[in-house]
């Protein structure tokens, strides 16, 4: 059996990465704002928790997510019985897994960007009658554009590149959870090296372009300062 080249895994990867990036941006902007301005004792705990995916093997995360989402855990049972939702081996399942897995890659650039904004600028906005959310929208975000761009690009690329978590939670169901990285794994298993090469080279080219864009942006910003 030789399935040959198929564009679908790539489209699925990009769809997964796109939605993950969008959701994480929405979640991480307010959280980064909160964390950047917080001096609470709970801050390092939250920071450590959300950074765990950077150091944990994806299989560990995938394993526990699989258990959590499956019908055997209380949470999985609740979803199944109350809403008739089964997240294991579905696109929604790997979307949740991706959001957790890529969380630090969105949060950290945003948080460090916001931390670099001077307190005076934020206080000036308050004394001009602007609320916290107005300040975030009109003062903070426009001044951390490089951080936002870095967060968006790295999150997107990191999600495209993930493998272990998706495999554990989603398996390899065509059109549903078989993203590009998993398709490569399958091609190699099937000894279809030609297709594996095409997929891999495409991902290499994609990664290079993405990372070069990030460095170009950073370089440009250092120069214009």
């Amino acid at each position, binding site marked *: 059996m030789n399935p040959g080249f198929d564009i679908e895994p790539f489209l699925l990867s990009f769809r997964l990465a796109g939605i993950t990036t969008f959701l994480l941006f929405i979640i991480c902007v307010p959280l980064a704002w909160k964390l950047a301005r917080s001096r609470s004792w709970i801050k390092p705990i939250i920071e450590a928790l959300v950074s765990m995916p950077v150091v944990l093997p994806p299989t560990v995360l995938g394993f526990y997510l699989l258990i959590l989402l499956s019908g055997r855990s209380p949470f999985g049972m609740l979803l199944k019985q109350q809403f008739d939702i089964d997240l294991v081996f579905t696109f929604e399942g790997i979307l949740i897994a991706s959001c957790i897995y890529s969380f630090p890659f969105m949060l950290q650039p945003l948080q460090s960007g916001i931390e670099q904004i*001077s307190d*005076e*600028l934020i*206080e*000036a*906005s*308050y*004394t*001009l*009658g*602007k*609320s916290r959310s107005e300040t975030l929208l*009109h*003062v903070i975000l*426009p*001044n951390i554009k490089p951080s936002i761009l870095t967060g968006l690009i790295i999150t997107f690329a990191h999600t495209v590149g993930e493998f272990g978590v998706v495999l554990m939670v989603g398996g390899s169901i065509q059109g549903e959870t078989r993203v590009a990285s998993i398709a490569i794994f399958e091609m190699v298993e099937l000894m279809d090296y030609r297709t594996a090469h095409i997929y891999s080279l495409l991902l290499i080219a994609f990664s290079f372009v993405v990372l070069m864009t990030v460095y170009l942006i950073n370089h440009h910003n250092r120069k214009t300062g």
Partner: protein
Amino acid sequence: MVISSLKKTLVGAQGSFLLEADVEIDRGGVTAVAGSSGSGKTTFLRMIAGLTIPDEGRLEVDDQTWFFGEKGRKPVINLKPQERGVGVVFQGYALFPHMTVLGNLLYASGNRSRAEMLLEMVDLGQLKHVKPANLSGGQKQRVALARALMRQPGILLLDEPLSALDETMKAVLQDELIKINRELGVTILIVTHDSSEIYKLCDRVLVFEEGRIVTDTSPRKFFVEREATQKFAFKGEVLEVRDVDAIWVAVVAIGNNLVEVVIDTNEKEGLKVGDSVIVGTKAFNPTIRKFQQGEFDFSRL
């Protein structure tokens, strides 16, 4: 009318001390807030603006309570900075770098005609479409000033607004502030170290020391009537004592100026290089005497 009895424990270089801002300030005046650094001046202003929460006390502005709280408890009343109607000019200008000059003003309020009026007033009409990065220090300061006035605040707080400017620019901005005070009737509180600024600009001086207001008087009383027997008196440092024929000459640095004062042998005996001295006049001749501990020290402002 601002009535404050705010208190807050601050940590200074010599351990913690209590900032006790017990003061009443009339509408429409210009009050200088002076004192050595770390004496609580800036915190006092920040507490009025609502940017720093006091430990206890009460702050009333025009019969409205802005803050009321007891020690160790959550404040009963604590208006947010947004609700206080205070204009603040920050030490570092705090202009929004991604907005033009006009954009900075319009961010505060959408009132375009007021923005144009204020920009004309501070002489920046020509630069309204320029971004802050392309402005000089003095221009940035004027934008910050105009922006702080956009929402028609009753109180304008300035934290060492002119310290980074050269003398010419300082004079221009001082005139600007006088104009703002007279034309817009804004009550101004200004943190300043500059004695000429206090004298020119302010009608009242509050001197903070270790958190307490130790002096509360008019600039005239503060500077002039203090040394009633002398026409003028400057504090300086002896750089050199020189033998010129039969007399002695002391070279004294006062600010950036050097003056030479003729002294007699008796005076010479008591002076050495590095001494702090007061240079004054008596019977039209400059005199010099050693600076006594506890005397008013301009450099402490």
